[in-house]
């Protein structure tokens, strides 16, 4: 069984659906036509480029190539975490906390899966390594960005409460403890919800892709279960680490709340 090839002609024709949508939004003055078209165009260009890069990488099976592209993916994800926050940690720290936590959790979990569970030969075979790392990074990125944003914003808004607890002699991490727990919880809830309805409400993208590509659905399902377990672990451990580091940076060695270490939000 092999997949039916789609040509650029079909893609262009499908694109007219989005163009039609854009025309409708212009008529109803929704003001989203421009961003909609730009996003669709960006998506098409980015994916085409990625396809070319992946084709190229798959012909080189050296570990350095895989490591190189993994680091590029990590760097982009790290930047996303930093820019999505309303009040991120200022300077290099904000970038380092998010990126570092993603590196530790995603890479550790990906290596565990590739070398321990899938056991391709070699274990860093790009056909397995890059999609799995990509899915892990994408999900941990969302979780970490969400939880760090929650925590820094809560610290800013609840400054009086946190400092009142410090005045009573509490340690920094106790004084902000409730907010740190909330932050981890709110980051994990999307993952929990997605797992809870997986296969019933939504068919996960990877599984759909494998089935479209003509694979046996029962193999596709096993891969999807593996991926979800990896995502849950990677997200959870990544968030625990990111929140711990953020709490550490929000207080100094005298347990003072240091909101001056947060960047002011852009007025836009």
């Amino acid at each position: 069984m092999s997949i039916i090839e789609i040509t650029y002609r079909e893609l262009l024709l499908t694109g007219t659906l989005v163009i039609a949508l854009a025309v409708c939004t212009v008529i109803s003055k929704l003001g989203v036509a421009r961003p909609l078209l730009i996003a669709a165009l960006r998506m098409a260009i980015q994916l085409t480029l990625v396809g070319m890069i992946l084709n190229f990488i798959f012909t080189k099976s050296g570990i350095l190539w895989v490591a190189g592209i993994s680091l590029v993916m990590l760097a982009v994800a790290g930047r996303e975490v930093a820019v999505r926050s309303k009040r991120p940690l200022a300077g290099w720290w904000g970038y380092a906390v998010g990126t570092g936590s993603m590196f530790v959790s995603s890479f550790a979990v990906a290596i565990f899966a590739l070398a321990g569970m899938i056991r391709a030969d070699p274990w860093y075979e790009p056909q397995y390594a890059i999609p799995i790392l990509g899915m892990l990074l994408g999900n941990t990125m969302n979780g970490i960005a969400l939880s760090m944003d929650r925590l820094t914003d809560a610290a800013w808004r609840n400054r009086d409460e946190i400092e009142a607890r410090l005045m009573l002699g509490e340690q920094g991490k106790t004084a902000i403890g409730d907010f740190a727990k909330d932050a981890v919880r709110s980051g994990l809830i999307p993952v929990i919800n997605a797992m809870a309805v997986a296969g019933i409400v939504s068919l996960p993208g990877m599984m759909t892709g494998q089935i479209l590509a003509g694979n046996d659905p029962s193999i596709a399902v096993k891969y999807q279960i593996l991926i979800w377990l990896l995502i849950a672990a990677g997200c959870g451990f990544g968030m625990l680490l990111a929140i711990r580091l953020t709490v550490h940076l929000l207080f100094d060695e005298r347990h003072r709340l240091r909101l001056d270490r947060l960047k002011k939000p852009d007025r836009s």
Partner: protein
Amino acid sequence: MKKGLSISDLCFLDWGPLSFSVNPAECVGLRGASGSGKTLLLRAIADLDEHSGTISLDETPCNSLSGPDWRRRVAMLPAESSWWRDTVGEHFPEELEESRLLVEQLGFDSGKVFDWEISRLSVGERQRLALVRLLQHKPRVLLLDEPTANLDEKSTELVEQVISKYRSNESVPVLWVTHSREQLERVSSRSLILENKKLSEEVAG
């Protein structure tokens, strides 16, 4: 160096250098226009903000203790009290006999007050209960930021009595911020004025 709270060459932001001391069992008033930095001064003494210079309590410098240990000894009562659990009682790790006595002295019914919901309390009630919450840790210095700002005359009197009793019984130095001259005449033995980022002693008369 001597007993009590002593502060020398304290600088924070662009305030200072400020030097003064408060003896054990002495209450010193602190006055100054709004925005003159009274609260910032208290925050610096409680080591909540970065500062330079020396702050010491009974010859123990601030830096020789951890931040939380220092703040348990040098306790600041902020002008607006904050509460983070649902009921009053949850903010008291253990219901000490002394806390029960204190709430009675401040005009509450000690049998009921610990079950009250925070959201139903008035600002003044919260302010009085915050004082009890602070005193349960047996602090060695009190830094009070307008402790009676939201209180009626009767409650103000109760709060003044409780603080004065604690000060003399435990022999602790007290630094009391207020806008009211009459209050300072009642509670303090002398006053400092914070003006143009400098401290001066108020001349009697």
